[in-house]
């Protein structure tokens, strides 16, 4: 009996802290991935083969629409600044607009990439908060260096999968 009471009292003092503060371990990095490809036609089969290639002296910068001046101006931060041997680029889409526009400079040739998209709230947890996922509707690009564009995956999320292909 006494032994049993001792066991009960001993365990009555064992009380764990009930709240554990957890830091966010999930990735909140949501960016569109665009790959560079050469299109090589096959004369015998009349099919095309897509071969990835790397570009040199690549500069990428966002173009933000200013509603007061009604003009696009360059975002201060440069995403890629004269980077060599780049086979793909990661582009952050605008969380609070339905269009994201980028100025892409291949050495000295400049192209403009316009991506029209919708934004979806994705709640992760109380610690990680909420991120914005995107669904690509349309992609339009000037054809100074790049010949054509193709959407391969409309869903832009944290999985880092390729979303569009830029063909040369």
């Amino acid at each position: 009996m006494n032994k049993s009471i001792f066991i009960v009292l001993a365990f009555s003092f064992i009380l764990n802290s009930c709240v554990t503060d957890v830091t966010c371990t999930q990735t909140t990095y949501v960016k569109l991935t665009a790959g560079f490809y050469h299109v090589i036609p096959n004369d015998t089969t009349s099919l095309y083969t897509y071969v990835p290639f790397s570009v040199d002296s690549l500069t990428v910068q966002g173009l933000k629409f200013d509603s007061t001046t009604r003009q696009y101006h360059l975002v201060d931060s440069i995403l890629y600044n004269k980077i060599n041997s780049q086979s793909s680029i990661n582009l952050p889409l605008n969380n609070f607009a339905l269009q994201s526009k980028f100025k892409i400079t291949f050495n000295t040739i400049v192209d403009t990439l316009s991506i029209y998209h919708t934004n979806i709230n994705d709640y992760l947890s109380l610690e990680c908060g909420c991120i914005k996922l995107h669904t690509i509707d349309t992609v339009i690009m000037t054809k100074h260096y790049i010949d054509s564009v193709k959407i391969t995956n409309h869903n832009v999320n944290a999985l880092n999968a390729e979303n569009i292909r830029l063909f040369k």
Partner: protein
Amino acid sequence: MQRIFVYLSSFLICLSVITASAQKKKQIVLPPDSTKWLNGLTVHVDAASLIIPTFSSNVLYSSEGGIQLDLKHKIFPTLELGYGGANKLEADNSGFKTNGLFERIGVDFNLRKRKPDSKPTNNLFVAGVRLGMSHFNYNVTNVSVTDQYWGGTESLNFLNQSSTKIWYEFVVGVQVEVLKNFYMGWYIRNKNLISQDNPGAVAPWYIPGFGQNNGASWGFNYTLGYHFLSPKKNLMRNKIPNQTTNNQLKK
């Protein structure tokens, strides 16, 4: 040669002793289990949950109690009811608030083996299982989304969210009768969620009766209980067979 003789003779002695004791054991006839099926019920409250706010910086609060039937001092069907909640505020001012009722149903088994000739003890070492459920509403507020490249911030509120969670528990505990019919005890619980959140859903941070929504959690209860005995009719009924046996013996 002498050593072999000593070894063999000692082996045979041991064998004969074991055989004799086995025969004696066979001769013991266990008396029929005279313990009643229903031996009353215990009503208990959890004292540990009252001090949880102190340990959780007033983030969590809970109170619970239960009813436990005593069947043959071996099986203890249990119903537990409680009320719990959370009011959590993160460093970035995002918050989570909930409160709700929860219930658990299950059974405990007394692990203490009773000697055949001893009286049933009121001090128990039990292990059991529970099935818990809670339906509750919650608010997630001031969740900020920022765009570090393009600029801009948005604050989101997810109000009046509703959820039903089901979980199972493994429990181990001790109950001791400290005064006549007054019990003290503790339980350790390993809780595991059955119903999981869908990806992208606004999942609750805390589940009343379960704890933080991490798939599995641990719990501790310190119970204070009072044991209500069976009605006297049952006691009398149980005494009748013994009395008739004595009368028959006298004849």
